[in-house]
């Protein structure tokens, strides 16, 4: 009998929530890596067993741990993601932290990708034991221009996130660069092209720049070819691959809510259904629920219309942020939705967002939430 696991990466460790497929009785396991930052933890859907965690222990730097028994035992990567040593006199880059982990394509067992800060792309072909740089990106002559100078980076540094492998083409990879834009490679990372047409970049005088945009979360649909959505610093978008142009579907959100936020979740069985969790992007960008009234919004028609979903959530004075990796779904029917807050709460919905309940309180600041079915 498979069980559901909800992997919660926090600023102070990893927690694993567990339930049976009915999602009624929940357990909590952890903390793993107490006191260490866990930016992301992902269970390999190809074997249902290999769990990777991106960990950073204070001043000891970053690493990746792997487990094959859902965290009972952990093994550190022998060769964690690391930039190539600089040639000559200059000092080369160093990875600050591993931010994003993504399993490779279904047929490429053992392959994983990692995105880091500063923005770097790394690959493992042995289940996360050893990593090497994808030099087509890391050494690309335009990479420095794409990611911008460190002084313009977000507070946690410029980051490579939203690593998506096209489920229909293992060599086709999408990435998001914070303050850099969306890029894609169709040759396993050897060459890259910006993919930002139609996407706003309100912080530039020229609205039609090829890169420099700020995607917060890019999701590629796992079952339907060429369906890509994006929550950006400047709105919510769906990509029309035939025109290779982003359409701002966030313009259909209520005007008093807007279309700023961080996470975006796609329904794995319905390519027209997606959820977002709007944040206040006015004035100084508080990044909090608008008016202190948290709510998810769902579209069931590919962004033509949106519906508010707040039943069970705080009706007022709900001041938290939901980060880009901290909202996700399971694959059960009806679909379960989960989000974690910067205040350490994990919320869930087992009716596709119609109602919400809090699964646990008092965890550390939550960075990521992922689900997995465990045999």
């Amino acid at each position, binding site marked *: 009998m498979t069980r559901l696991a909800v992997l919660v990466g926090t600023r102070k460790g990893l927690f694993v929530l567990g339930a049976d497929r009915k999602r009624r009785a929940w357990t909590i396991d952890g903390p793993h890596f107490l006191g260490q930052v866990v930016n992301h933890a992902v269970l390999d859907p190809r074997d249902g067993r290999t769990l990777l965690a991106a960990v950073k222990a204070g*001043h000891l*730097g970053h*690493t990746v741990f792997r487990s094959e028994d859902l965290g009972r035992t952990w093994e*550190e990567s022998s060769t964690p993601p690391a*930039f190539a040593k600089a040639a000559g006199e200059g000092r*080369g880059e*160093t990875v600050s932290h591993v931010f994003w982990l993504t399993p490779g394509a279904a047929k490429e067992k053992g392959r994983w990708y990692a995105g880091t800060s500063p923005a770097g792309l790394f690959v493992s072909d042995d289940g996360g034991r050893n990593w090497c740089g994808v030099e087509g990106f890391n050494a690309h002559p335009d990479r420095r221009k794409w990611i911008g100078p460190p002084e313009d980076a977000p507070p946690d540094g410029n980051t490579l996130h939203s690593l998506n492998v096209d489920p229909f083409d293992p060599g086709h990879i999408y990435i998001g660069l914070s303050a850099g834009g969306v890029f894609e490679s169709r040759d396993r990372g050897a060459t890259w092209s910006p993919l930002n047409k139609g996407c706003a970049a309100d912080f530039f005088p020229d609205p039609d720049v090829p890169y420099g945009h700020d995607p917060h979360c890019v999701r590629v649909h796992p079952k339907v070819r060429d369906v890509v959505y994006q929550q950006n610093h400047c709105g919510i978008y769906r990509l029309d691959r035939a025109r290779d142009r982003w359409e701002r579907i966030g313009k259909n959100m209520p005007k008093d809510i807007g279309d700023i936020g961080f996470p975006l979740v796609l329904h794995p069985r319905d390519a027209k259904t997606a959820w977002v969790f709007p944040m206040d992007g006015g004035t100084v960008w508080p990044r909090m629920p608008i008016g202190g009234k948290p709510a998810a919004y769902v579209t069931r028609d590919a962004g033509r219309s949106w519906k508010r979903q707040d039943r069970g959530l705080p009706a007022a004075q709900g001041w938290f942020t939901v980060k880009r990796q901290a909202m996700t779904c399971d694959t059960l029917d009806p679909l379960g939705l989960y989000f974690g807050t910067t205040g350490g709460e994990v919320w869930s919905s087992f009716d596709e967002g119609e109602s919400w309940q809090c699964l646990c309180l008092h965890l550390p600041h939550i960075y990521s939430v992922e689900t997995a079915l465990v045999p």
Partner: protein
Amino acid sequence: MKVVLPSPLASYTSGKREVQAEGTTLAGLLADLDRRYPGIRFRMIDEQDGVRPHMRFFVNRVLVRSLAVPLAPGDEVFVVAALSGG
């Protein structure tokens, strides 16, 4: 020679805070430490061979900043990990 490690590195040495390692320079000593306790060097030295921020090495109680500093049999090396943040 004796190497004294800070508590954040104890997970690499089965909890031991005092271990033995050999080397004629600090770089050599760290390479030997990594052979004995795989992964421990990368916790102190980054991929550009730079000492990680807030990590400090003392040889016979004297702060050293170069990995090329020579070592002699009988020297004592202290590794200190300063704590900051919250």
